[in-house]
């Protein structure tokens, strides 16, 4: 019974029309397009070994942060709980949880031994008075405990919403420091929630717009290390990177992987004109995809690899176009007021996220792949560069503040436009790219 569809998620009704998903005793009230988050109870996981207390607390806190951070779930404070779990096997007293209006209950245990952490958990539907799905057990080295917590949260999110989760994922981005006219930039990577921040390059040269490989183990980006923009491929595991070949006297930038990981689409500038090209991931077999005197850049493959959405100013201003992944005649899809750039195809294939500039403001928005049903999700002095969560439900982007002291930060928003928030823990940052769900 707990498997209702959160209206923000479902077919993503594009109008804010109230959707009342009231099945049995579950009450999901949506008024004026605002979802009432699902109240859940998450008692601190039971420590099953003598030294597991701190780990159990930490894992529980990360699960709560993941679930509540979606804006779709609301945690009932532990101080309100009536039943206490002395053991993972303690039977659930449903009336105790009904009394505090919990709709979901998560009970778990944590054991630590020999550098390994083992987490097990069960999810209960309080109103129907039964367990939802089977209990699960996951294990990892102690150093990966946050991933265990994210995986637990992903399972719960998935069981309740019917969608895959996005918590066990990472973000590669550009870490920024220094004044606005002497900005230092370096590549960095962190968990999706900003934890486990690590730097992948130093800040000796400008870098920007990194993107993950489809398997999440490599990053491709643009660097000025030769004095000119070049494309570099970096292995996250050993932090080794190599420049891809270039045509002398050109600039190459804006690289993106194809969904099969075998090729890279990118921009090359020659004699002042920028067009799109494709080459093998090892740098061979470059072919030209567009041939116009306009700027063509910011490409993004469709998830099936058959098409590419990109931006071009061939009409006079930046607009969005779709063409075959082999080139050919593109079709314009953006027709609203203002200019459109940085299109990114949703991993679900249904939507394209973009940056829109209009009337002196920047917006992150989404539209269907035929350009219909455009919706703007944000507005600010400067928002740009959307990147999709692995499940296509949340968008992370760069928000930069105005003025001499202006700084860039990472923000996320869900595709209904709700739950706008800053990604904490990563400092000043830009150009986020969200990884696939980790294996």
């Amino acid at each position, binding site marked *: 019974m707990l498997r209702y569809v959160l209206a923000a998620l479902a077919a993503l009704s594009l109008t804010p029309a109230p959707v009342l998903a009231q099945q049995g005793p579950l009450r999901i009230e949506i008024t004026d397009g605002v979802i009432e988050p699902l109240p859940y109870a998450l008692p601190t996981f039971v420590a099953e070994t003598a030294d597991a207390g701190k780990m159990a607390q930490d894992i529980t806190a990360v699960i709560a942060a993941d679930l509540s951070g979606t804006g779709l779930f609301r945690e009932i404070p532990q101080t309100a709980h009536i039943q206490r779990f002395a053991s993972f096997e303690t039977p659930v007293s449903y009336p105790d949880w009904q009394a505090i209006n919990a709709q979901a209950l998560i009970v778990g245990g944590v054991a630590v031994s020999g550098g390994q952490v083992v987490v097990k958990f069960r999810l209960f539907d309080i109103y129907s008075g039964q367990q939802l799905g089977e209990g699960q057990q996951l294990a990892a080295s102690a150093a990966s405990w946050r991933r265990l917590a994210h995986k637990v949260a992903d399972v719960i999110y998935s069981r309740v919403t019917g969608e895959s989760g996005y918590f066990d994922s990472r973000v590669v981005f550009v870490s920024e420091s220094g004044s606005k006219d002497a900005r230092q930039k370096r590549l960095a990577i962190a968990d999706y929630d900003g934890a486990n921040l690590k730097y992948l390059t130093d800040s*000796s040269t400008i870098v920007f717009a990194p993107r993950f490989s489809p398997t999440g183990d490599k990053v491709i980006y643009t660097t000025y290390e030769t004095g000119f923009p070049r494309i570099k491929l970096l292995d996250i595991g050993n932090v080794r990177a190599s420049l891809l070949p270039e045509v002398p006297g050109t*600039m190459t930038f804006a690289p993106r992987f194809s969904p099969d990981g075998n090729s890279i689409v990118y921009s090359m500038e020659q004699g002042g004109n920028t067009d799109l090209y494709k080459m093998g991931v090892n740098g061979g077999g470059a072919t030209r995809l567009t041939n116009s005197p306009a700027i063509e850049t910011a490409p993004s493959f469709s998830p099936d690899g058959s098409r590419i959405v990109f931006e071009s100013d061939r009409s006079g201003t930046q607009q969005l176009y779709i063409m075959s992944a082999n080139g050919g005649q593109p079709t314009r899809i953006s027709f609203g007021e203002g200019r459109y750039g940085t299109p990114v195809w949703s991993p679900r294939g249904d939507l394209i996220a973009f940056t829109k500039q209009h009337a002196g403001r920047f917006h992150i928005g989404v539209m269907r792949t035929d350009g219909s049903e455009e919706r703007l999700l944000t507005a600010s002095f400067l928002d740009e560069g959307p990147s999709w969560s692995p499940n296509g439900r949340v968008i992370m982007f760069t928000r930069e503040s105005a003025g001499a002291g202006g700084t860039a930060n990472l923000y996320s928003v869900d595709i209904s436009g709700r739950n706008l928030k800053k990604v904490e823990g990563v400092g000043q940052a830009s150009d986020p790219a969200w990884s696939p769900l980790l294996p």
Partner: protein
Amino acid sequence: MTFAPKAAVLLAVLALAACNNPNKYGAGNGVVDPGGAYGDGGVTQGSINDPNSPAYFNATIGDKVHFLVDQSTLSDEARTILTGQAQWLVGHPQYNAIIEGHADEQGTREYNLALGARRASSVQEYLVSQGVAGSRLRTVSYGKERPIAVCSAPECYNQNRRAVTVISLGAGS
């Protein structure tokens, strides 16, 4: 209601070494920064009153030209400056130049990179049309990465939409 221990998910330790060894980043630790990316300095020896000095080129002739929003077309004022640059470069063949194109912050990053390249290319074409050998010139775009004016207002944007001709002594001089 059964507790079914699923196949344990073993998570590999992220093999991300601490990044304390700059050598692992490969070449390019020394910033190759032909344009003096932290300003538009370039070579600045000599007096602005000495017509043979780089300082004269930078300050008296003017090393930069400006552009309208989204434009790479050269204004009459820009052409006058570039004509002076071309004459100086023709008369001082020991110097080469890198032309940096820049954009203001009111645009997306990659588009602005391409836009800056258009601007640099406009300048290059004009200098070549005025007799400067193309082999002495190279272009680069910094997009919106290197503003010289940091306010978020038109007077700053006007300064940042620019192309800067950065001269340096060429090989063999």
